[in-house]
């Protein structure tokens, strides 16, 4: 009996010290644990209600094999699938490579280049619908849209009707997508370049490295991981980016420039066939899932490196 209070007193500070030491960081308990769970719960609730449930519902909707036979027998779907691959392959890679190169240009310390950067970011800050509608309006007006007028004024050639041909229309959509999203990736690569220590470049200069060698042997290896992760994220986003197709060409001529996601809208709204629309969307999963897994792997590896 007499010993108990002494033991309690003696245990007090020890018991208090334990949670303060790294222990509370490795595995939580008590109020820390409950608070952490409370902090995560808003996002967890959102995720369960608006991601897990709809994904499950969608997988169930598109789980009938005959739907895919129906898709493959539709020439519009084949066309859209080819367009999707071309759209993503070109739009993502062109904007990534140009963004990487342009970020080097924007590293130059000139006042006018800083001012130019502010203007260059403008397309990214413009909302998608008005920006793409402006593209549509420039290109749909034949023969006197702004690009055609400029062609006439500068070179004296009469421009084409941009939405009259599949590939031309796809090219217009790709251009609009690059225009809108390249500034974001340029900013991110600019951030990455700023994080590269200047001494590495100084050392390269002492060794007599040329501009190309500085780029190829200093910048590229250090930005490789950032570049890969950005490319993967951009690819995933572009898969679900319907806006350039919907608003620039509108899928003209005759579904010729539609991608899978916008064709899905047609299946859903014009033909009132939601399961077929879901099946069209799910048909890109064989391409999309490896990209997501690769991204998860790269992010995990990046974390280990940090």
């Amino acid at each position, binding site marked *: 009996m007499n010993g108990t209070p002494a033991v309690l007193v003696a245990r007090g500070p020890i018991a208090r010290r334990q949670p303060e030491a790294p222990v509370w960081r490795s595995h939580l308990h008590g109020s820390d644990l409950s608070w952490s769970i409370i*902090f995560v719960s808003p996002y967890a609730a959102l995720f369960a209600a608006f991601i897990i449930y709809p994904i499950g519902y969608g997988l169930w909707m598109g789980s009938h094999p005959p739907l895919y036979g129906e898709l493959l027998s539709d020439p519009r779907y084949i066309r859209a699938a080819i367009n999707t691959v071309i759209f993503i392959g070109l739009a993502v890679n062109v904007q990534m490579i140009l963004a990487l190169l342009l970020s080097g240009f924007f590293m130059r310390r000139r006042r006018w280049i800083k001012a130019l950067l502010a203007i260059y970011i403008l397309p990214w800050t413009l909302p998608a619908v008005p920006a793409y509608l402006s593209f549509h309006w420039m290109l749909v007006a034949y023969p006197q849209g702004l690009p055609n007028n400029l062609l006439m004024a500068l070179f004296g050639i009469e421009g084409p009707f941009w939405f009259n041909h599949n590939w031309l229309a796809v090219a217009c959509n790709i251009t609009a997508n690059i225009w809108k999203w390249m500034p974001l990736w340029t900013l991110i690569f600019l951030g990455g370049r700023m994080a590269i220590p200047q001494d590495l470049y100084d050392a390269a200069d002492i060794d007599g490295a040329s501009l190309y060698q500085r780029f190829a042997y200093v910048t590229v290896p250090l930005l490789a991981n950032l570049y890969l*992760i950005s490319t993967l994220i951009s690819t995933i986003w572009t898969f679900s980016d319907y806006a350039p197709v919907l608003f620039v060409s509108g899928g003209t001529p005759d579904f010729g420039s539609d991608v899978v996601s916008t064709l899905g*809208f047609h299946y859903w709204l014009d033909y009132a066939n939601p399961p077929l629309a879901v099946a069209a969307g799910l048909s890109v*999963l064989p391409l999309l899932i490896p990209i997501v897994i690769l991204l998860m792997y790269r992010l995990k590896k990046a974390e280990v490196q940090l």
Partner: protein
Amino acid sequence: MIRALFPARLRRPVRYRLRRILTEATSALLGAVILAWSLVPVYNMFLVALDPTGHNEFTWEIWPSDPTLAAFVALWTGEVEDVRDIWLQFGNSIYIGFFVMMLTVLAGSLASFAIGRMRLVKEWKLTSITLLTYVIPSSTLIIPFHRVMHIYGLLDNPWAVIAAEVTFATPYAILVLLYYAKLIPIELDDAARIDGASVIQLYLRIYLPLMAPALAAVGTYALLFAWNDYFYQYMLLSSEKNTTVAMGLEQFFDDDDAPWNYMMAIAILYSLPPIAIFYALRRYMASGLIAGGIKG
């Protein structure tokens, strides 16, 4: 001997100067190309908005021949039938954008704090789970989403759109916040703990203030996301009183006789809020994006 030395000595500076002039000329040229590339579609908006009819596409004009602010004035006075609801639509867009921004910052910062600072679970587990959001393209997910919203009874309710947009904006926000949080030494938290700070105090007094740049970047990103969206708004909202600007703009799309000058005037006004916020927060954005440069 001396004559032989002179040309060699002179050649170097001349060559360097020539190279410098060439570099400057190339970068000036590149700058001009970038300027044109960035501004042509924006310029086109003004060209159409400033035209008295908006049908100037059938003239070979590069400069506005008869510029007028009539379209903007008409929007202000609300005297044109097609665009009478414009301010209601603006109100709805701002309502949705504001809550998407706030809730993304809130949900993202809470989750990233619990995982990144409290180490509730390993970070890569959270990032992997959040990436599940992108496994099915959001343009496809809208279809089951529409059904699910019907089940929840949220159709034609702005909160359905807010929920959808917050859900899609938060994963990227968490990613950026987690990487930015690594720049803040964890020892700060330890020190505060020793001084007796609670978890909430850690979050409010240490995490939020130090994360301000990243939070600004993430909030702007969420606002841009809401402002860019069209299809979720179009599918989930139907009644006139819930129409947003993006939906209103789309109505002009198929109509060749539509008053395009009004449409472009609306487009310009609609573009202003995100641009203003972006440039106001640019200083923060830059450092937030650098950290969010997903370094690895």
